[in-house]
């Protein structure tokens, strides 16, 4: 007797005992026919048995026709988005390249100003391949006043020193200096565009014009396609700098009213943040 039996009245307990031993009439042929129809249509074959001939055998892999295209599509999409892109740079990459070029140009300016102070070996190597310096061409053509001014500033202080006297052989320059700067893409663009406009007198039967070195472009950073543009141009140093400058601009320095008994320990001014 179960612990719940006290809740059941006597007749319910009797009913339970009666129904426990109760058997209904045996299954009719109609009952079994409906059951066999279910078995045939419902794949009653257990999964561990080998595949049977007929509809029961193929039900395990019925999902393949729709699963396979889904898997293939998802894999292709994933590969497409994750694979780094190398062709056709976007506007962001062009901007980044220009920024690098600007930085390189500034570096070049610094080097040229170094040249003015007497260390001219490195920039001379740049100018040797075309027979004249890029700075000189800028100055002559006047197409780029800023860079021309820069070039003037760099080469201006040494007018009395003819360039021929300061030149070193290309081999020596290549041995002493870092790789030539005209290999940078933006500078190539500027220097090349200006070089096209000038006329260089040459002897008709002179030695063959030295072929310019092949442009070696800086290898493009492999930026994944899924990386957003904002992440590509993200410059944490500049952001920090702007932030600190803003904070400094907000500072207010106020003179403090001095107490009567000034022992020199009170601050004279107060900085408000």
């Amino acid at each position, binding site marked *: 007797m179960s612990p*719940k039996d006290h809740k059941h009245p*006597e007749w319910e307990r009797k*009913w339970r005992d*009666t129904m426990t031993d109760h058997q209904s009439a045996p299954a009719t042929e109609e*009952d079994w026919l409906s*059951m*066999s129809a279910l*078995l045939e249509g419902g794949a009653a*074959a257990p999964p561990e048995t080998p595949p049977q001939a007929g509809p029961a055998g193929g039900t395990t892999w019925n999902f393949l026709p729709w699963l396979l295209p889904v898997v293939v599509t998802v894999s292709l999409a994933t590969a497409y988005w994750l694979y780094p892109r190398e062709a056709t740079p976007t506007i962001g990459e062009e901007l980044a390249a220009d920024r690098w070029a600007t930085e390189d140009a500034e570096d070049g300016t610094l080097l040229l100003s170094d040249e003015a102070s007497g260390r001219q070996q490195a920039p001379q190597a740049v100018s040797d391949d075309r027979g004249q310096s890029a700075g000189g061409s800028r100055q002559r053509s006047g197409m780029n006043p800023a860079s021309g001014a820069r070039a003037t500033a760099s080469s201006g202080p040494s007018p009395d020193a003819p360039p021929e006297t300061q030149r070193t052989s290309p081999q020596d320059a290549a041995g002493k200096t870092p790789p030539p700067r005209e290999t940078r893409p933006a500078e190539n663009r500027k220097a090349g565009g200006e070089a096209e406009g000038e006329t260089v007198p040459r002897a008709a039967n002179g030695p063959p014009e030295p072929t310019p070195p092949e442009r070696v472009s800086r290898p493009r950073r492999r930026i994944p396609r899924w990386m957003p543009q904002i992440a590509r141009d993200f410059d944490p140093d500049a952001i920090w700098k702007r932030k600190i400058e803003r904070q400094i601009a907000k500072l207010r320095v106020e003179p403090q009213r001095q107490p009567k008994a000034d022992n020199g320990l009170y601050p004279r001014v107060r900085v408000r943040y």
Partner: protein
Amino acid sequence: MQFITARERNKLLAACRRGDRRGQEMLYRKSFPFLLPLVQRYLRDRAEAVSVLNQAMLKIFQSLPDYREQERLEGWMATIVRRTVLNFIRDEGRARRRFHPEAYPAPTSVANTGLENLAAEDILKLLETLPDYLRVVFSLYVFDDYSHPEIARELDITAVASRWRLAKARELLRDAYLSTHEINQQRS
């Protein structure tokens, strides 16, 4: 309830696991008289009860590889049948029907002496007079020994509603018995 000997059971189970249709038919025919009353406690119509039992038997055949030999086959099958019936009732929404008091006579005090000596067929007939949502609660509580919280969980109702339905089912069963008994006495 034991409808099969251990030796027969092993043979039948092996045949059913192979997918042998004759073995499946034998197991079906042997277990049918024991399992159908279990379904009929919940479902009034025999054809409907057989349909649900067949669904349960299909599940049994499909789940035979999961059956562990140390388990009682009868109990395992009865559990699957009961779960199938309850799922059917839940899916059909039969346990959620609202009670309309005007449709039933007022409860009367009836002596229980007559109820005790009913045969199984009479019990089933009396159960058929109950509406579905009361019969399910009564069967679960009386025959399957469920508690009210368990019934509430199964049928997605409250335990209070389960208690109320059980009390209502008892009253209606007494009334139905009384009316049947009076008719029989008048005939005799």
